[in-house]
């Protein structure tokens, strides 16, 4: 019998099940009555930033070329006999995989034959197969993918900003790596990284939909290969507090300058990081969302347009707040933003708007519980941080105005920002 832990939330009247499987895997199951769709994710805490690691059998950290996590994702989709898509074709599931900065996830979504699709998912992710020949072929496909992103202005402006913010942290490098770094990849390196990061103790299975919990666990018993805990540790080069470059610029064939402005802050972990994210989101809303006086003023003056937005971006070893959009004069946006941050630090944030922003934030989180994909993703992301899927909504409900004011003072240092601008090819300056 599995030891099931029920994780409940009174506020929204929902619950799900957590099982620590004997194989080492963390399993999260959320039953959604009356839904057609089931969404399953099998993920590892392994993303593009994890290029330096060791296991308990090794004394020193090793460093590997950029882009291996993403490369592995591509290669696992191809097993010894055929492409994984052809296996799913027989169950009708729609399958995919993605690699982010700190995780790699394999997923399917289906309305029938969930058990068969789950078997496929568990089997192929646990069955690596790399040869010199197949690794070479993939270099062509991934090379094209990297080139495709070279033309993507939104992607470029973002990575240029990360290069402005970070001296050493690998978050500044494209998730797919570079044409040069992927040229260094060989089957030996792929196996080395696979064995370290695809250990089930480093992985999570998350599944939401119209499913039978016991059937899911039975399949897991049969298809998961027990792993011993290798006590994987990852590390990063030391990252200075200040930014690497105050400004980064580039040119592409676009119509209007695109910009990203980043404010670098100290990274946090676990529930502290979630608190930091939520409180920072409140700060961003109060400072510069569509209802703020600041937004209205800049919008009315034509300095920004409706593409202007902000977000928090964080992970293992990095945390920043980003403002971005299109503007004829991005440097003017930065100047106005710095002035507004300084003014707010002195005069205080708009307390009247705090309560309605809280309602709005809370309402947007409720909406996520409509959808199997959003729920499965939420369970996976929070599970990887050793948190519950309800921690975010409860933290939002509990945040106070004082927390948010303290966060503004702590997190927004105007001398620690970097602006990235992509300008149109045919114009000399943004002015």
């Amino acid at each position, binding site marked *: 019998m599995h030891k099931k832990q029920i994780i409940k939330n009174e506020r929204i009247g929902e619950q799900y099940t957590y099982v620590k499987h004997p194989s080492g895997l963390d399993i999260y199951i959320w039953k959604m009555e009356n839904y057609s769709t089931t969404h399953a994710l099998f993920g590892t805490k392994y993303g593009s930033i994890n290029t330096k690691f060791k296991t308990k059998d090794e004394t020193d950290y090793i460093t590997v070329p950029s882009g291996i996590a993403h490369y592995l994702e591509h290669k696992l989709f191809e097993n010894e006999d055929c492409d994984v898509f052809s296996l799913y074709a027989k169950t009708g599931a729609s399958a995919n995989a993605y690699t982010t900065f700190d995780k790699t996830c394999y997923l399917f979504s289906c*309305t*029938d034959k969930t058990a068969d699709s789950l078997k496929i998912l568990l089997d192929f992710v646990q069955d690596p197969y790399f040869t010199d020949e197949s690794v070479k072929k993939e270099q062509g496909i991934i090379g094209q993918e990297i080139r495709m992103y070279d*033309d993507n202005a939104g992607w470029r402006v973002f990575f240029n900003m990360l290069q402005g913010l970070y001296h050493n942290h690998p978050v500044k490098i494209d998730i797919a790596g570079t044409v040069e770094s992927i040229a260094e990849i060989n089957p030996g390196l792929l196996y080395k990284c696979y064995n370290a990061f695809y250990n089930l103790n480093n992985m999570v299975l998350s599944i939401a939909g119209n499913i039978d919990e016991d059937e899911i666990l039975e399949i897991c018993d049969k298809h998961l290969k027990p792993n011993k805990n290798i006590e994987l540790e990852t590390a990063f080069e030391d990252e200075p507090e200040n930014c690497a470059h105050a400004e980064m610029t580039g040119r592409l064939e*676009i*119509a209007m300058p695109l910009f990203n402005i980043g404010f670098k802050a100290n990274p946090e972990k676990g529930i502290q990081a979630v608190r930091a994210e939520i409180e920072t989101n409140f700060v961003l809303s109060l400072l510069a969302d569509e209802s703020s006086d600041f937004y209205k003023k800049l919008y009315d003056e034509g300095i920004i347009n409706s593409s202007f937005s902000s977000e928090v971006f964080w992970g293992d070893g990095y945390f920043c707040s980003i403002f971005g959009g*299109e503007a004829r004069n991005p440097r003017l946006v930065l100047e106005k933003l710095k002035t507004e941050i300084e003014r707010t630090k002195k005069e205080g944030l708009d307390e009247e708007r705090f309560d309605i922003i809280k309602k709005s934030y809370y309402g947007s989180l409720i909406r996520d519980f409509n959808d199997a994909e959003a729920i499965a993703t939420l369970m996976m992301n929070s599970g990887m941080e050793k948190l519950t899927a309800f921690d975010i909504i409860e933290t939002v409900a509990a945040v106070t105005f004082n927390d948010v004011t303290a966060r503004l003072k702590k997190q927004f240092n105007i001398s620690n920002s970097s602006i990235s601008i992509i300008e149109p090819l045919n114009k000399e300056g943004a002015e």
Partner: protein
Amino acid sequence: MSIKYNREKISDGIHFTTLLNERQKTNTTVIHLVTGLSRDTVSLNAVIPYVLAGTNSSFTTLTALNRELNRLYGSVIKGTVTKVGDSQVLSLMSGCINDKYTFENEHITDGLTELMLECLISPHIENGGFFGKDFVLKKQELLDDIEAEINEKRSYAFKSAALRIFENEPSAIPVKGSLETAYAITPVSAYQQYKKLLKTAQIEIYFVGANEPVRSKEIIKNAFSALERDYAGDNSSALSAAKAQVCRVTEAHDVAQSKMVMAFKTDYKSTVVLKLMNAVFGGTPFSKLFMNVREKLSLCYYCSSGVNDKKGVIYVDSGVEHSNAKKAEDEILNQLENIQNGNITDDELENARLAIINSWRGVSDGARSIADWYFQRNYSNGSESPEDFIEMLKKVTKADVIDAAKSLKLDTVYILTGKEAAHNA
């Protein structure tokens, strides 16, 4: 899981459709104003939903309206404009959480309905036109959007290809118009066009939620029955005829990777058969195009096909190194020929069928997707549910798929490529 569908006429050319499913945690309302695409009105129409979604006569600034929406638990009101066949669709969408999830049992759904209708029927106006200061900004955004289309090369290639695919048909007109048509709009001309649309356009309203929206329905009915109407009639789209000679265009831009769009025309009658044929051809990641053009031959980073059933077009969308463009085109045509010659395995056919069934079953799980499903059906004078389509799909034979493939005629090959490559080509 099935959805309770109810469609009723509430005025001349105006229908209100409810789509109820008890598990919904949110309420979504969509109002579509459907009208013919025409160069004279395209940019006027394109700006209207964005103007309407930003303010109304009670909340006269974007800031004030947004604050009210935040107060209603982060409710949203959004404007969009899309193209369906030869029609332009101006939409206002609103969404909120179900009242029972509010902190203190507040009635936010009916409040949001009122707010949305006020946006639609009682906009912020001055001097016989939309409020000038806001309008100037929305107009600038429209111009910026049109200019920014070049930023995303994949969709840009698609829009440029459409100009050729639908030459001399309304569907060729870009959904927001051109810089020229957008420059010409004024607060007064847009307002007059808006007044005209409220009178003449086909109006389709959808509500998706857990419970019958008793009070919201009343509010909507009252508002729309008070409108003075002079209905112009239902919209429809004409199938696009194949050109006598294939249209070939290569455009040069500063890009690293070329984009190729190929279009085939068909007058095949059954949408369901076309969808299955498309799934076998290039509509899934185990289709002939994906397995051969992308995986086996590594000719493209992406290569997939889609159906525009309103216009009778199957298109193939690919990202390709320029030096491989000809090879990729030949291989795409070769794969189509394979289907036409009946080289389809039972697995290929059944897997394609399963993939479509899977996606149609999932339609009713999402508020937007189910509202859009019924709008697309209603537009084509149907009201079939996803389940009805699944039953039809189950009956489609291999011979039907071959027939559908045989009806395809190559019409356009559009390539967007690097300047270097175009020069050497």
